[in-house]
């Protein structure tokens, strides 16, 4: 009996393993694998859709392992050391350039359909190549910015678009509290367009303070590259670079005046002269700062702790949408130059709404807003690429199907709704695609504000912000900022806009050999300014005062003691000391 029991237990164990294995794979179809290495929260809930898509093309199952990184640098370190077993990555453009230069990427050729599908195993009756969906503006901008990339240990040069598939893109700009700006009297296109990046430095463009209210209310991004770009633009606008020429001997524009460089060239300029000016500007900026933000920027702006923040468009978009306030009257506030709140009213269902006492209209506005200065700006891209030394060649088919899946208009629409950035898939393709429209409608028209509102029978009684697809389409694709008529979601739409040309948006390449110098500059700028020496001085002062008080107390005590001694002696009596003895 004692021997039978363990055997019995083992049998039960084996059986349960077999059963669970069968449960995982009920139809006995072989399972492929794929390891995706991406930013956190940077994709929608794709699993079911992708599994179905993969199965329809190959007849096989797929198991996706999703790993995340939080900075490009952590990703780069892992890929370069080759100790991460990942098949496909989604870093920013400069990180892709860096990997390509080190010869660490596999050619994708996504935009050459024949090459891409040549070694693929799929049911091509069902396969639709989505390469054509990708916005050609985006591709053009990338190839223009990076040009011919030379690869370590390889002859000739490479084109970035052969190695990456753009995923999301956005701009760098200024997220600001519109109503704080109204209160300070600087919510005006003329004023803001003159100050431009100077808003972050509280500089009105002429070297004067933009507004006293901004002092101590500005947030700067704790990111070396973004802060460097913003500072460069500020230096150029404020005339601090006038008459100076590039001292970077390795660049093609050596000896040229900074003012003559295109935005694309200027944003990538690094030399000692620029670095020392940047350091100076960033050190001076400290007096105006609330602080540097990593993750808390949105919250600080929404809570009113700060008024201005350097932000990426997607984050800004999210913050703006969060900042809706029912009680603010936009039109009257702008007209009167101060915050105008409406009066609370109730409709027949008891729901609150606000009516402005001046214009008698229903109130409601976004408290925050986003501004991309018109003089110059930065546009960035994240894209998919295959790291040569860490991918598993057996997974190549799954990688290719995954990338193609992401570029279908419907998936692009899902991703845009989930992440908030603009997908590199052509907005026209999304707009025309019936599935994509249905997705956007589902998310926005049906599920919007009160998506989980149900009556007692469990039926949806959600209220909708948008009455029709057309109304929503206008909001989503053609939304213009009232201030400068710019389209945040689709900066490329600006190219046919008179207020700004596409040339004013530059792509930032990797700092390359200058990386260390920039990091050193940033570290120095961060380290100085707030000095602890006064603290030491104050402490010393307090110590001296405390010591002085103690000595004084002792002195007074002794003085009193000696008086007590003397007093009885004078009256002829015995001293207390004596009586003790």
């Amino acid at each position, binding site marked *: 009996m004692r021997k039978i029991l363990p055997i019995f237990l083992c049998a039960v164990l084996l059986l349960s393993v077999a059963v669970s294995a069968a449960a995982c794979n009920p139809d006995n179809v072989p399972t492929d694998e794929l390891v995706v290495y991406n930013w956190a929260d940077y994709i929608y809930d794709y699993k079911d859709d992708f599994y179905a898509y993969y199965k329809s093309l190959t007849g096989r199952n797929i198991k996706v392992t999703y790993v995340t990184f939080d*900075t490009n*640098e*952590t990703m*780069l*370190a892992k890929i*370069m050391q080759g100790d991460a077993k990942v098949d496909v990555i989604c870093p920013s453009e400069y990180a892709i350039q860096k990997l390509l230069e080190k010869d660490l990427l596999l050619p994708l050729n996504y935009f050459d359909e024949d090459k891409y599908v040549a070694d693929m195993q799929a049911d091509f009756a069902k396969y639709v190549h989505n390469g054509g969906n990708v916005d050609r503006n985006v591709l053009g901008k990338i190839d223009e910015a990076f040009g011919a990339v030379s690869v370590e240990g390889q002859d000739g040069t490479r084109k970035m678009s052969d190695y990456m598939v753009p995923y999301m893109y956005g701009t760098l700009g200024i997220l600001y509290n519109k109503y704080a700006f109204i209160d300070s009297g600087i919510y005006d296109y003329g004023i803001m367009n003159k100050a431009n990046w100077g808003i972050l430095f509280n500089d009105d463009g002429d070297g004067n303070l933009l507004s006293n209210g901004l002092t*101590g209310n500005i*947030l700067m991004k*704790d*990111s*070396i590259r973004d802060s460097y770009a913003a500072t460069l633009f500020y230096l150029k606008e404020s005339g601090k670079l006038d008459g100076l020429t590039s001292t970077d001997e390795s660049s093609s524009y050596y000896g040229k005046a900074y003012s003559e460089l295109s935005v694309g060239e200027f944003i990538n300029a690094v030399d000692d002269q620029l670095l020392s000016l940047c350091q100076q500007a960033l050190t001076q900026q*400290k007096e105006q*700062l*609330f*602080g*540097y*933000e*990593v993750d*808390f920027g949105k919250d*600080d702006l929404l*809570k009113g*702790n700060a008024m201005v923040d350097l932000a990426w468009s997607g984050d800004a978009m999210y913050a703006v949408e969060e900042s809706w306030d029912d009680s603010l009257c936009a039109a009257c506030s702008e007209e009167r130059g101060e915050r105008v709140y409406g009066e609370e009213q109730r409709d027949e269902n008891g729901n609150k709404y606000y009516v402005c006492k001046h214009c008698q209209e229903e109130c409601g506005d976004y408290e925050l807003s986003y501004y991309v200065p018109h003089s110059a700006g930065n546009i960035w891209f994240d894209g998919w690429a295959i790291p040569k030394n860490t991918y598993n060649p057996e997974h190549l088919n799954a990688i290719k199907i995954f990338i193609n899946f992401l570029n279908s208009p419907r998936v692009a629409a899902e991703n845009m709704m989930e992440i908030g950035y603009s997908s590199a898939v052509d907005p026209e393709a999304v707009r025309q695609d019936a599935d994509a429209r249905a997705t956007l409608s589902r998310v926005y028209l049906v599920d919007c504000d009160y998506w989980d509102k149900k009556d007692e029978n469990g039926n949806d009684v959600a209220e909708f912000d948008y009455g029709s697809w057309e109304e929503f389409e206008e909001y989503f694709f053609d939304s213009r900022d009232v201030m400068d008529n710019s389209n945040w979601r689709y900066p490329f739409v600006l190219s046919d806009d008179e207020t700004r040309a596409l040339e004013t948006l530059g792509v930032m390449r990797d700092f390359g050999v200058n*990386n*260390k110098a920039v*990091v*050193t500059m940033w*570290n*120095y*700028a*961060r*380290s*100085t300014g*707030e*000095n*602890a*020496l*006064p*603290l*030491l001085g104050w*402490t010393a002062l307090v110590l001296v005062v405390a010591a002085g008080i103690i000595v004084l107390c002792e002195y007074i005590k002794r003085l009193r003691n000696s008086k007590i001694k003397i007093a009885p002696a004078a009256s002829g009596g015995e001293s207390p000391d004596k009586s003790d003895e």
Partner: protein
Amino acid sequence: MTKLKFRFSRKAFAYPYMIFLLLFVVVPLVIVLINAFLGDDGKLTFANFAEFFSDKGGGLTVLGNSLIIGFVTTLICLVIGYPCAYFLAKYHASNKVLVLLFILPMWVNFLIRTLSTKAIFMALDVKLGMGTVMFGMVYNYLPYMILPLHTTLVSIDHSYIEAAEDLGADRFTVLWKTVLPLSVPGIVSGITMTFIPAISTFAISEILSSSKIFLFGDAINMHFSKTTNSFGVGSVMSLVMLFMVIIANVLVSLTEKKEEVKSSL
């Protein structure tokens, strides 16, 4: 044929932790040491040390600031903490709730405490800066000063104090000549327990000054997480930090030997 014997003694229970220490403390330290001497090209170099000690990236300035902030924090903690621990020890027998009140904040995660402190400051319209950081530091590290002091003070034999009183010392002299010298081990361990974390902290300064005040911990953090090719300088800075910890520990062990009264903490 000799039989290999494995004797299962009580020592064996320590092995898992020994292995853990070896893997996660000793090995990383060796990696830090190696990284400090590696250049960008992977060759042996002293360039990282040169870069740090020439203060090109402001590393020394930051170290100076951190040391000052750590020193002042420790001083304030000592000045506030000693009387506090003294009275806690004096009324120990009758009032254990009081001791509990002082330990209570340590049960709440320090990040939560610091974030709440920030929220309070923001609500009161206090400008974030050096003052708020100092407040946060003292608030966070005060228990680490009070507890070792309290343990030492409680363990002082009361007959010493009675003896001093019998010999005619007034209350101040008893404190100055008897209690204070006997509590030196507690003071030393309190100072190390406050000073060492205070110079290496970065979360408190980051939250309570919105990252405006940049400390040594921030600088090390930046070299590792925000860049790919300055692990070398970051490693040098970590070594400097480690060096200071070792010095502090040597000082502690010296005073402990001299006083021959071991603090129980």
